[in-house]
């Protein structure tokens, strides 16, 4: 597969989107959303920003399947680490010894 050259115009648009995302997350932090929504809003913006960096600045959108597989495996193992550890802490108080 030959190399895809990302045009500066695309980089500029991603850059502006990232700056807008940063502004948005700061503004959102000063609002009080109900319950855990503050965390959800902040993390959603962070995930979108990170995805833009990975897809365009790091050229993954134009990379082969092998690169996608490597990144997918990282996310998969990260999810295992979080899910198993948090499920342990989450359930520790469920059964209190008599």
């Amino acid at each position, binding site marked *: 597969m030959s190399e895809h050259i990302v045009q500066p115009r695309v980089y500029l648009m991603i850059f502006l989107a990232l700056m807008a995302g940063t502004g948005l997350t700061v503004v959102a932090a000063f609002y009080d959303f109900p319950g855990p929504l*503050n965390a959800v809003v902040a993390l959603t913006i962070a995930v979108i920003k990170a995805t833009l960096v990975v897809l365009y600045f790091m050229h993954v959108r134009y990379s082969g399947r092998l690169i996608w597989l490597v990144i997918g495996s990282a996310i998969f*193992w990260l999810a295992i680490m979080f899910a198993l550890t948090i499920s342990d802490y989450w359930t520790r108080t469920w059964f209190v010894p008599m």
Partner: protein
Amino acid sequence: MPEGLAATHDHPSHPALQHHFENMEQQREAGTLGMWVFLVTEIMFFGGMFLAYTLYRFEYPAAFVSASNHLDIKLGAINTAVLIVSSFTMATAVYSTQVGRQRTTIICLILTMILGATFLGIKGIEYHDKYNDHLIPGQLIPSRPFAPEVAKPGDTDPHKLHLIEGATVQNVQLFYWIYFAMTGMHALHMIIGLGIMTVILIMAWRGKFSPEYHAPVEISGLYWHFVDIIWIFLFPLLYLLGRHLEGHG
């Protein structure tokens, strides 16, 4: 005849082509794959710290809010912007090597390094503020143990620690352990990144790169962007999320 073999016969081999690769494209793709595998180990490494943050945040929400409120949102936001601009200049450096504009590459690399150094400078100011307020955890600095002054109700002195209900100084210290571990490891990665950029800059200066051979710029760029991504998560988690106390915990 295999495709790779044909390619070596059609073109005279590039001086940067290593003997164990068929052609420049295969060499470049192998390098990119190797860098991504390394970045996976980095994701898992930082992932462990993000997991520790998550667990203790659920365990001590009030202390995390109190501690997070002591951080400077303005400096954190400026640093986020600085890193995003540096990622943009890095991406532009990669583009200009791909199209063979050596001068632009050098300028972009220098800009990237200046922005990286700016980030570290602002981080240094923040660390110094924490030093002044006795917030360096444990005995990391033996002559300056963790001993913040706790504000009494009504006292608005920003240098004192303002504890909300349910927060203890001990658990605030836990937040600062996590804060210094995560931002410290991130800063170390920035310093290493500056070292890598110095090497790439010298190579660019000597005219080593061309549209056919620019893998080192590309791969260093991947590392630089990765360090930017870590900060994209650190900024809201450390500086912003602590502004709100959620119902759980």
